[in-house]
C-alpha cells in the first residue's frame, strides 16, 4: 500500500527553466479531499506551510502530527517524485485517520510559478531544506535563494513569518544568508530564538537528505529568518 521508492526513481537534477505543462491557477480542494465534502470556499482553505523542493515528502510527513490545524504543501518539480509524495499522503491517510489530512504535494517549477499559488502574506513558514548547491558560478542563477526570488518569497510570507534554510554545504549556507540578510525584509533569528521553535528538530533529521547527511556524519548549517516590514 505504501509506495516503494524504487519505482519512483528520478534524476536528481531537472531543467529549472521548464514551464511547459504546469497548471497555474489553483483549486486547493483537489489536494485536501477531506475538506472537499463541506462547501468550503477558497478563502477558507489557507495553506500556511510550504516546503519548496520537498523531495520525497519527509518534512511534510513529520510535521503533520505536530501541527494538526495547519495546512501544508510541498512543491516539487520532478514528476515521479511528486507522484510518490501524493501516493504516500494517500496511503498515510488510509492508515492513520485524521492525522495526515492536511498535507499534499504540487508538481510545479517553484522558481517560475511560486506567486501563482499564494496570496500576499498568506504563509507563516517557508522551508528550503538542502537545496541544490549548483556549485559552478555559471549555475548560480539556478539556486533557489536569489535576489530576484527573495522579493517573491517576502510577498507570500506574512509579517512575522519564518523562512528556514538548512544545508550541509557551508559555501551555500553563507551564500544564502548573505542574500537574505541583504534583503531589507528579512531579519536573521538568533540561536536562542531558534531553540524554542517546535519545527527545528525535524529540519536536520526529518527529511531523507537530512538522514543521509547524518549517516555520513556531515555538518548541517541551519539559518532561520523572520519576515519584517521593509523600508517604504
Amino acid at each position, binding site marked *: 500500500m505504501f509506495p516503494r521508492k524504487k519505482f519512483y526513481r528520478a534524476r536528481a537534477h531537472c531543467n529549472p527553466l521548464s514551464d511547459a*505543462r504546469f497548471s497555474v*491557477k489553483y*483549486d486547493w480542494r483537489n489536494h485536501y479531499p477531506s475538506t472537499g465534502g463541506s462547501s468550503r470556499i477558497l478563502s477558507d482553505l489557507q495553506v500556511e506551510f510550504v516546503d519548496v523542493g520537498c523531495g520525497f515528502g519527509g518534512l511534510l510527513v513529520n510535521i503533520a502530527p505536530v501541527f494538526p490545524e495547519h495546512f501544508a504543501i510541498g512543491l516539487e518539480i520532478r514528476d515521479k517524485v511528486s507522484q510518490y509524495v501524493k501516493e504516500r499522503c494517500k496511503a498515510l491517510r488510509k492508515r492513520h485517520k485524521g492525522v495526515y489530512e492536511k498535507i499534499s504535494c504540487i508538481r510545479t517549477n517553484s522558481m517560475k510559478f511560486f506567486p*501563482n499559488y499564494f496570496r500576499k502574506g498568506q504563509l507563516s513558514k517557508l522551508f528550503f531544506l538542502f537545496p541544490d548547491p549548483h556549485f559552478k558560478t555559471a549555475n548560480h542563477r539556478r539556486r533557489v535563494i*536569489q535576489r530576484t526570488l527573495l522579493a517573491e518569497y517576502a510577498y507570500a510570507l506574512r509579517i512575522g513569518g519564518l523562512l528556514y534554510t538548512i544545508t550541509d554545504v557551508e559555501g551555500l549556507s553563507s551564500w544564502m544568508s548573505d542574500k537574505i540578510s541583504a534583503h531589507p525584509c528579512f531579519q536573521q533569528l538568533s540561536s536562542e530564538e531558534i531553540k524554542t521553535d517546535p519545527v527545528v528538530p525535524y529540519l536536520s533529521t526529518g527529511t531523507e537528505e537530512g538522514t543521509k547527511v547524518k549517516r555520513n556524519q556531515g555538518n548541517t548549517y541551519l539559518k532561520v529568518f523572520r519576515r519584517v516590514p*521593509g523600508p517604504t
Partner: protein
Amino acid sequence: ARASGRIAAFTGWWAPTRHRRTPRMAKGKSKRKHKDGPSGAEGGAGPSADYEGPGESWGGEHMNQAPAPLMAMHPSGEHIAVAYGKGIAVFDASTGAQIPLRAAAKVPSIGEGVAHTPASPEMRAPLEPDGLWHADAIRAIAFDPTGRFLATAADDKAVRLFARTPDAYECVRRWHDRKKPTALAYDDEGTHLMISNKYGDVHVVLTDREPNDPVGTDHEHGALREVDHPAFLLGHCCAVVTDLVCPRGSNLLVTADRDHKLRASNLPTTVPLIHGSWDIQSFLFGHLAFVSCATAVPEPDDDEDEGEGAANGDRKPKKIERLASGGGDGAVRLFRLDDGEELASAQLSTPVDPPSHEELEAIVTGQAPRIPVNAPAVTSVDAHPSGAAVVAAVEGAPEAVLMRADSLRVVAKIPVPVVGDDVEVTCVRFDRPSGRRLWVAGTFGEDATPFFRCARVGSSDEEASEVVRDGQDGASAITDPADDVVASKMCDAMAPHAPGNSSRMVSKGTALRKKQYDNVAEIAERKKLRRDVTKGKRTADGA
C-alpha cells in the same frame, strides 16, 4: 591500451558522439574572461557567450526579431520621436520639421568592458561607425514625464540618453548591458530611468547627474561608490520582461513578462531607488499567454468645471490605479493595481486552437495543465490621457481598435489607410497632453516599408468620449492635412532604415511565443528501447 579485463565492459569508445564535436574553444572564444565575474544570480545577468554581434541572435537566424516602427510623444505635445531599425528621428509635431540629434561635447560610456581612459576611442566617438546612434534594431524609446530627456534602447545592448536643449537633443549618456534591453520607463520626476532586459532584470540609472559623481553610500559596503553603471532594481527569475510601466502617482513599477503575468512592485520613497525595489504590491494574473504590452489607464476626472482645469498644469493628476495590458492570447485586460484584480477583458482576435468550455474550466480549476492560448498577439496598447478610452493594435489586422476604458467594450475599429499587403501595425499612441490625435505606425509590403498615419479623435475630453460612445463600426478617421505632412516626413525619414532581409525575420509575437514540444511519447519509446538493450547485456555477461 586500456586494462584488458575491462574491454568487454567498455562499450562506447567508437560510438557516434551525441554531444557537440567541436568544443567551444575551437571557435576562438575565451571562457576565462567571465569566470570570476557576476554569476547571474546577484542581480545581474551572467556572461553571454552566444552573442556574435549585431544581427545575430541565439537560436539561429530564424529567430531574428523584425525591427518595428516605434513612436514616443513628448509630454508637452511639441515633439514626436520615431524610431525604426537603427534609425531615430525627432519631429516637431505641428510643422514636421526635424529636430537635430547631436553628441554632447564628451560622451562617456561607462559599462562592461569599456576603457575609461580619456584617450580611448569610446570616449571620443559617440556615434556608431556608420553615423547612426545604434548598431542594431531599436526596441524602445521614451520621453520622461518632465520632458527633459529622451532615452533609446537597442539590440546592440546600448541605452542612450538624450537631454533636451533649446534647439536640439544632445546625447549625454550611454550605457552598455550584458543582455538585450526590452523596455524603458521613467519615474514621476524623470530622475530615474528603468531599463528591463531579456534576462528578466530591471536596472535603474540616474538621469540628471554628471558621470563619475559619487552619490551617497552603497548600503552593502558602506562606502562611497560610483553609481554610473546601471544598478539592479528587481528581476523576474529567468523570464523575458516584455514591458515596463511606471504609472504616475502610484510609486509602483509594473513589469510584464513572458510567463503570462505582470507584477506591480513598490518603488521605495525613503531610501534611494538605486538600492533596489524589495517589496511587491501585487501580481496581475489573467492572461493565458505571454504579455506583450501594457499601459497605465488614468482615472477619469469628474470635475464639473472642465474649462479652468484643462488649460493649465496646476491641477495635480490623480493617482493612477488601473492598467491595461495586451498579450499573446489576443486579449486586452484591465487590472486594478492594488490587489491585482482583473476588472475587464476584451478578446480582440480569435485563438488558433481555443480550448472548449470544459477544457477551460479544467485549466482554471487546476485539473488540466495550462497550455498557452495562441492567438494573433496584441502588439501595442495605449490609453487616452483623459482615461476614457484605450486603443490597441493586433498582429495581422490593419486597424486600431478603440475601447471604452471602464469596460473594455469595443466601440470602433479604425482602419489604417495604407495601400499594400502584409500590413502590420506595431505602435499606436495618443497625442499628449490632449489626446486629440491618434498616431499609428507599422510596416507594409515584403520590404517592411514603414508607415505613419494620424487621425483626429476629438478636441477635448468630451469629444473623445463622444467618439467612444457613438462607436459606429467602420467609422473612417477624420484626417487633417497638416498631420499628413508630418506623417509623410516621418515615413521619408524612416524608410531608409528598413531591414534588407526581412523575409527571415519574425514578428514580436512569434519571437515571444514558445514552441510547444509534444515528444513525451517519443521519449518514453526511446527509454524503453534503451532499457531493453541494457537488460540484454547484463544477462549476457552472466550477472
